[in-house]
């Protein structure tokens, strides 16, 4: 078989985190009874007119700046005309001729090293409503709550060569946008959607092969699988002497199979033209500088600061900053208790373990930094020992309990009563003559068993160090 190279470009749609829609004042909140977040504008009523939400523009500019794009000082909105009931005006307001950002790129890193993936353009547009097919009543209904929710579409250059690079690019893009606060970028909930344009060519060939566009990719895993599958499909076609058809395909992740939705021949003519209801947006240098100045601290800056300010090792800092939520959790907790290294240990250890165990993303963390900070203080004060602390943290992680209250209610405080402890230790010594003999006979390790027995008798509420000290003291007598 001949050698092939895979060429991939992505079109990534990101739902922006504005409170209101792109062209009207309706709420963008997810959920809500059908057609309750609507008005004449986002339902396409006659005579209604769009007015651009300034925040959308600023988020788009922020993403453009963070991905090293040029900002178009003069940008316009165009109408993309097509008939479908989820699109109340039967045209989508988007940008074709003068998009807000162009010619940028971000650096990605994979097992094969670093490379830059170019960004062709970023444009703003409105989302469509949702069709609900009622099988029971044999009819279709439309919910326009999502109609007019702001999106940006980030169009990459065809610079990626493998699923690994695609995932690295998406991961980086997602992190940048999350850091900017411009979107939560959740693939499963559709606030980030990626369409994959893929073609293959023989190794060494200059021209691109015929590409297909893959839609309906709802997770990183689905994207990786769809890429492998589509690459193999195209190579099989070429090896069989057939041609790849330029078409849009839909991925079915359950069946691990894609099928053709429409070919280039029946591609629609969208009859794009500048929307006469919206005036061109003129962006001044001052405005761009204002957005640039307001950019939050990005990952690279945090990595340096974590090392220099908190003394966190690079590896740990890398993990702490791999999600905005994790970095926020770290910084807020550290600010509350003033013990960054201990906070880092809790996040790197127990938190990651629980996330992995429950198959959750850092974005799904629901506990408050205050409760983790309090727990760290409780441990330091000797109020609970580290074993008990892990159990308490599991409760914080699951239900965000207040550790002080929880420890009090459950009676988990370490017993510091010297008399009670001494009594228990003496009982343990009396009950385990063999271990006592072993220890006295030089088997230092036997002390561990005696400590464990004492802790067990104390229901874990003793300070293991104190138990150890006391045992040695009594046994030495």
């Amino acid at each position, binding site marked *: 078989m001949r050698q092939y190279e895979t060429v991939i470009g992505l079109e990534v749609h990101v739902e922006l985190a504005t409170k209101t829609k792109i062209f009207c004042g309706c709420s963008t909140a997810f959920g809500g009874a059908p057609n309750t977040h609507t008005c004449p504008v986002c339902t396409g009523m006659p*005579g209604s007119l769009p007015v651009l939400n300034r925040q959308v523009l600023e988020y788009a500019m922020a993403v453009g700046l963070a991905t090293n794009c040029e900002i178009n000082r003069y940008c316009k909105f165009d109408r993309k005309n097509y*008939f479908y009931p989820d699109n109340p005006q039967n045209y989508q307001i988007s940008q074709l001729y003068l998009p807000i950002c162009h010619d940028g790129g971000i650096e990605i890193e994979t097992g094969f090293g670093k490379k830059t993936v170019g960004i062709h353009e970023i444009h703003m547009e409105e989302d469509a409503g949702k069709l609900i097919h009622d099988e029971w009543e044999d009819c279709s209904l439309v919910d326009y709550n999502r109609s007019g929710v702001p999106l940006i579409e980030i169009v990459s250059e065809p610079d990626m060569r493998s699923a690994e690079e695609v995932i690295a690019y998406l991961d980086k893009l997602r992190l940048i946008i999350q850091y900017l606060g411009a979107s939560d970028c959740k693939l499963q909930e559709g606030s980030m959607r990626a369409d994959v344009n893929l073609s293959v060519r023989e190794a060494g060939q200059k021209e691109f092969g015929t590409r297909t566009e893959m839609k309906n990719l709802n997770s990183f895993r689905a994207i990786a699988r769809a890429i492998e599958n589509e690459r193999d499909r195209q190579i099989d076609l070429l090896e069989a002497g057939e041609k790849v058809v330029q078409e849009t395909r839909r991925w079915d992740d359950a069946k691990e199979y894609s099928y053709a939705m429409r070919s280039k021949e029946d591609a629609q003519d969208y*009859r794009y033209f500048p929307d006469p209801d919206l005036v061109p947006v003129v962006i001044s240098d001052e405005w761009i500088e204002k957005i640039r100045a307001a950019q939050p601290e990005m990952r690279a800056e945090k990595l340096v600061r974590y090392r220099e300010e908190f003394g966190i090792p690079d590896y740990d800092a890398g993990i702490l900053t791999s999600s905005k939520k994790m970095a926020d959790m770290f910084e807020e907790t550290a600010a509350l208790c003033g013990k960054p290294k201990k906070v880092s240990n809790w996040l790197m250890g127990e938190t990651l373990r629980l996330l992995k165990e429950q198959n959750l993303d850092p974005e799904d963390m629901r506990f408050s930094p205050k409760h983790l900070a309090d727990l760290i203080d409780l441990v330091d004060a000797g109020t609970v020992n580290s074993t008990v602390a892990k159990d308490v943290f599991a409760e914080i992680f699951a239900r965000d309990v207040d550790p002080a209250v929880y420890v009090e209610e459950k009676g988990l405080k370490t017993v510091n009563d010297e008399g009670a402890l001494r009594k228990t230790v003496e009982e343990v010594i009396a009950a385990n003559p063999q271990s006592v003999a072993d220890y006295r006979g030089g088997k230092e390790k036997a002390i561990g068993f005696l400590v464990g027995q004492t802790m067990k008798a104390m229901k874990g509420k003793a300070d293991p160090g104190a138990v150890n000290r006391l045992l040695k003291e009594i046994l030495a007598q």
Partner: protein
Amino acid sequence: MDDRLELSALALGRQIRERKISAVEAVQAALSRIRETEETVHAFVTVDEEGALRRAKQVQQKIDAGELSGPLAGVPAAVKDNLCTKGLLTTCASRILENFVPPYSAQAVENLEEAGVVVLGKTNMDEFAMGSTTETSYFGVTRNPWNPEHVPGGSSGGSCAAVAANECFFALGSDTGGSIRQPSSFCGVVGLKPTYGTVSRYGLVAYGSSLDQIGPIAKNVSDCAAVLEIIASHDPKDSTSLKRTDLDFTSALLDDVKGMRIGIPRDYLGEGLDGEVRQAVLAAAEVLKERGAEVEEFDLSLVEYAIPAYYTIASAEASSNLSRFDGVKYGYRAKDFDGLHQMYKKSRSEGFGPEVKRRIMLGAFVLSSGYYDAYYLKALRTKALIKQAFDRAFEKYDVILGPAAPTTAPRLGESLADPLKMYLGDIYTISANLAGIPGISVPCGMDSRGLPIGVQLLGNCFEEKKIIRAAYAYECARACRAAQQGKAVEA
């Protein structure tokens, strides 16, 4: 007919303030006039008798309580049926909106109602404002009150006919290519199209969004200025709405044109212009000259490109603007269909009339891939050149004077057979829309068949006051002359 129906809007407003007539009486008089006239004229699609009387009562209470004292408080008016009116049928004279009741009012209508104007109903028009005769309405033609065998012009034919027939004291129209000025000329009333962006388009059902402007249609220039003062406002709901601080249009009602420079484009006096219209328009220029204006002819240039540029841009925008009428959300939906595609096709085929379909197809064609540059972009460039031609002209002149239409009102049925000929009838008005400038049509005489002729005055952007002043001075001179002639006859 109640004599008081012949009062101007401002005169009626004064009588209402002076308690000589109540708002309710004024509305009752107008409604009774509508009842006796509509059979011949058919200026209205919807008359809202109950609502009008209810609002008149409320307005009168506010006037009595001293809460309303504006110049037009209590005055009954009509609104073109492409302006949304909350709770009142708004059809655009189309079957596709035959059942559409908007849950909101156009900003211009809201401004009127806030000023205490009582809306009597919705006036007939060419379907979606596409046409020059009001014959393309799904609800039947409107007839010219001066001669019911003739059209009132269009597309705001219903509004102009209603004012001419004294069915209301003024009306609102919309003007995309002359739809206020041309029917005003045919009906012997005064109609003004403001600078693009002066009146909010929110709630105006769009035809050609970059050209559409709402404006007043009234019995005289003063009423026109007073109505414009009320409807003009900056509206944050309309991105193309302008923030102007010079909206005191009535301050321009000065009988003084001394030193005003008036240019007459030779291009507007050539082939295709009816001899009687030409004579009346030049006579009007002569009157202004006698009053001290400096009048001369000049070459505007590019006039012949205005019509193709206009029909390209307006149709392109219309093809997209009208795609929302699909039977899914509101309006007409075909009875029997099999699947979504057929629902669209049948609803739109049955819901739109032939002229609307023609423009949708034309617009979709000029925007289609491969033709966009050759047609749409070229039309936009032509539009920019036409604007430049006006810019040059306004360096020399305060006002440009010419005919509003090449002929007086044609007979019913005469125009539709040849749409291209009908399009050519817009030649003197559409340039103002392409350039975004204001224009006013003022009556300037009658032809030998007894049909009104209008003279059009165009001003530079934001210079409504200049055309209002020129129009007002002309109107005064004409009234003065008529009075003298009356005396001469008596003597």
